[in-house]
């Protein structure tokens, strides 16, 4: 595969001999200048580096956060394969949080596809965030690391380094480059039987100009990609040595427990600390604009002491607001229909007017918290005119800049300490600043490290939530019972408008968004808008299928004539699930399909009701077309993970607002799928050979609709509101399956 050089390769000599191969987004005017910029950290974006040392040690720097998705393994696999290195020789290192390792290419990848990436804009007005600002991030999100950084940077850098090493060996042997081959970290001249290790050639390679164009391998040549390589981060995660942000520790460390304004957006009015300061270990009570914190010599002492601190926050218009009011507001907004266009094709109004039959379905989903297992936390240490920060984040570089700014320290005097993330799911993306800002403001008062930790209750009540959405549908059928129009109005804001599109061949479509802003802060939540929108669209498509008198699988296949990849995953999932075959008594299958983040996923859920008429999900069969699989085992793990994350939302997930604040506290009232609820999951990877698709998110969207569609067949009840725990399935009338 030949690729155009859209970015530019850079190389530089290492002290002690060796070569560093990187990859820049800006054109260096010449090689010398590039090296100078590399050395000083100038205005360019190097997205990846491969370092080859004399002893043949090969280090791959990964500019993305490891939060369980396996990126510390898959990205180095891509670089190592193109380099023809031995996997055993690869050392994986987290790229430091400096602008040389900003992963702006990811943003460019998105910008090319969709404009500004929705998962990054969050609640921030897109116009307020410049591309330049986004370029200077080190973001992990949007299911993008492998398909953008991996494809455009890691593979290219590996292939370039290989070509440079071949050139050096050929020069040394005075033979033509094409007489040489590479294998397991060595260049060989087969005719003479000579061989040199990459390490022996690295010092020479550092003096070469990187090639103008590089040739990437054909998949048939892969030696590492496509294999189920064991993840490099797992050993530390089974013996307790894996370090997360919350594990930052020093002897002199202080700990802060914090109470944030319970009603979003309100300010602290007064504090009565009583005798809390006289308690053992308590150092200070700190009042911030929107919160009060107790700093002590142990987190437990700080947390216990905070219970004794009385605080008053200002009153607000939102003080009496409940979820019922918010949803009533959504209804008003939908009725007013002051909309913005998302997608318009054909003449939907005309088709509605001339329809023989119109069906309607009004859907809602509630706010959801991320509930990552590692509660939000941040440790900050200001000393000697510098600031050090330890936190689990999906954007190390952005956090470093944020902390420096709040600490009043120059960005070059800020040091970021990396760690693994105890879950991300969007909560740890930039612009979700609480805890980071607070930890920095608190630490400014001390000259020792201060670790600020949100309790689980605070974590749940002070999140940036998946938006609650109301979505109203109408479908028009002609006299022959054929669906002619799709009419959809839903509440925004929508961050990824494409999530509301449907692939089905319905000639007239009108999809529009109305205002859905509330005082509740929102952010990207695993799969962003796809998780809500796919529940809506794939449920209503199911309604249309049943009204058409067609089997929901066959209806989708018939309406997807122009979408062979969708048809393929539906076919694979349905066949593997035994669709159309006899099921155990009282079981039913529901199906759904969605394209998101470049991957297409079909899921079939086998459901029943238990003796208390609660839904049981026995098995989920999933087919995913992600182009091809860099590491098939992590593909399966991510698909399993996304399904279970989506299943928790479908069965239990519900954040409600009472008196302006979040009503839920902890796992008992924000329940999670656990072992007992977990279905058997059967994953089928469909290798279409198309462009790489994302993996962290695409399996989440279809599951809620797949389960609900199965429950409809079982009970005759159409679920138009999540979560399922709120539904009473005791009076069920199974429908006759077509």
């Amino acid at each position, binding site marked *: 595969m030949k690729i155009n050089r859209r970015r530019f390769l850079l190389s530089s000599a290492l002290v002690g001999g060796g070569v560093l191969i990187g990859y820049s987004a800006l054109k260096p005017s010449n090689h010398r200048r590039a090296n100078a910029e590399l050395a000083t950290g100038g205005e360019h974006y190097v997205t990846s580096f491969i370092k080859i040392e004399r002893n043949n040690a090969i280090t791959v720097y990964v500019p993305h956060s490891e939060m*369980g998705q396996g990126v510390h393994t898959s990205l180095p696999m891509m670089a190592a394969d193109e380099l023809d290195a031995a996997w055993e020789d690869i050392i994986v290192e987290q790229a430091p949080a400096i602008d040389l390792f900003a992963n702006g290419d990811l943003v460019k990848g998105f910008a090319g596809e969709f404009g500004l990436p929705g998962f990054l804009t969050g609640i921030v007005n897109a116009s307020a965030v410049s591309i330049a600002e986004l370029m200077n991030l080190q973001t992990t999100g949007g299911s993008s690391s492998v398909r953008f950084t991996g494809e455009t940077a890691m593979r290219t850098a590996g292939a370039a380094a290989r070509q440079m090493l071949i050139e050096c060996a050929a020069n040394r042997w005075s033979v033509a480059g094409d007489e040489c081959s590479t294998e397991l970290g060595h260049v060989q001249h087969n005719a003479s039987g000579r061989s040199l290790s990459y390490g022996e050639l690295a010092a020479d390679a550092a003096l070469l100009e990187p090639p103008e164009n590089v040739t990437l391998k054909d998949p048939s040549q892969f030696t590492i990609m496509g294999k189920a390589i*064991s993840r490099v981060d797992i050993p530390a*995660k*089974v*013996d307790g040595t894996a370090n997360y942000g919350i594990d930052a*520790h020093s002897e002199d460390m202080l700990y802060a427990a914090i109470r944030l304004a319970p009603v979003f957006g309100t300010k602290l009015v007064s504090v009565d600390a009583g005798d809390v300061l006289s308690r053992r270990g308590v150092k200070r009570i700190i009042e911030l604009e929107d919160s009060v914190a107790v700093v002590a010599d142990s987190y*437990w002492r700080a947390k216990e002491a905070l219970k004794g601190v009385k605080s008053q926050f200002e009153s607000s218009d939102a003080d009496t607001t409940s979820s019922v009011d918010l949803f009533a507001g959504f209804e008003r907004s939908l009725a007013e229909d002051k909309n913005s266009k998302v997608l318009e094709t054909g003449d939907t109004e005309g088709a509605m007017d001339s329809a023989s039959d119109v069906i309607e379905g009004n859907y809602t989903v509630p706010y959801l918290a991320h509930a990552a297992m590692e509660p939000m936390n941040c440790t900050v240490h200001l000393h000697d005119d510098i600031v050090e920060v330890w936190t689990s984040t999906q954007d190390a570089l952005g956090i470093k800049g944020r902390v420096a700014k709040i600490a009043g320290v120059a960005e070059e005097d800020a040091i970021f300490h990396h760690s693994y993330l105890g879950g991300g799911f969007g909560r740890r993306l930039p612009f979700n600043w609480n805890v980071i800002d607070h930890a920095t403001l608190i630490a400014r008062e001390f000259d020792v490290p201060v670790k600020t930790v949100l309790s689980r209750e605070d974590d749940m009540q002070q999140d940036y939530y998946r938006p609650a959405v109301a979505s109203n549908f109408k479908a028009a059928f002609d006299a022959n019972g054929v669906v002619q129009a799709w009419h959809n109005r839903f509440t925004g804001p929508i961050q990824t408008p494409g999530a509301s599109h449907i692939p089905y061949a319905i000639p007239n479509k009108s999809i529009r968004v109305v205002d859905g802003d509330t005082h509740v802060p929102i952010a990207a939540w695993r799969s962003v808008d796809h998780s809500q929108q796919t529940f809506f669209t794939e449920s209503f498509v199911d309604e249309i299928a049943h009204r058409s008198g067609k089997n929901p699988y066959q209806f989708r296949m018939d309406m997807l004539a122009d979408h062979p990849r969708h048809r393929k995953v539906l076919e694979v999932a349905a066949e593997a699930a035994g669709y159309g075959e006899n099921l155990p008594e009282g079981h039913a299958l529901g199906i759904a399909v969605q394209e998101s983040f470049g991957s297409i996923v079909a899921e079939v859920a086998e459901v029943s009701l238990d003796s208390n008429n609660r839904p049981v999900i026995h098995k989920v069969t999933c087919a995913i077309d992600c182009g091809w699989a860099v590491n098939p085992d992590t593909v399966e793990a991510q698909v399993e993970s996304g399904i279970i994350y989506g299943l928790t939302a479908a069965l239990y997930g519900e954040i409600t607002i009472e008196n302006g604040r979040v009503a839920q506290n902890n*796992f*008992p009232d924000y329940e999670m*799928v656990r072992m007992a609820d977990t279905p058997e999951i059967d994953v089928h990877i469909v290798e279409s050979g198309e462009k790489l698709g994302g993996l962290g998110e695409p399996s989440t969207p279809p599951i809620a609709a797949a389960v609900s569609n199965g429950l409809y067949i079982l009970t005759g009840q159409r679920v138009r509101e999540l979560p399922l725990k709120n539904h009473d399935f005791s009076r069920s009338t199974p429908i006759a399956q077509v």
Partner: protein
Amino acid sequence: MATFKVNGVEQNLDIEPEMPLLWALRDELGMTGTKFGCGIASCGACTVHVNGNAVRSCVTPVSAVEGQDITTIEGLASVAAGANPSAPDLSAVQQAWIDHQVPQCGYCQSGMIMAVSSLLASNPNPSDADIDSSITNVCRCGSYPRVRKAIRSLAIA
């Protein structure tokens, strides 16, 4: 003074008797392998062994473990090995976790491994129902299918 053994080493700590074991381990002893997840014994991320039995340390005051033997994830392998110098660096459960590539973000896995180790010690061949009722730890990454596979690989048929 609170006195107990952690991974075979006696600890004497000048702390309040009501301080939960979790915070004594993490903040007083700097042993961060045991995780804080919910603080109310709901999620199991803080699971350790007290005299070999799985206990949620976030709600266990140190006064309740006075004089007892605590094992944490950091000591699981060496405690299992005892005086056997040829024992591997990982316990069988930890090795199965690698073989089945169980962890994702990994944050809950210390607690998960401690809970499963305790289950298998008392019930070497658990049924699916036994697993469902004993392993109630929360994993937001959804490693559950692999947890089940790893347990089955360890079960004595």
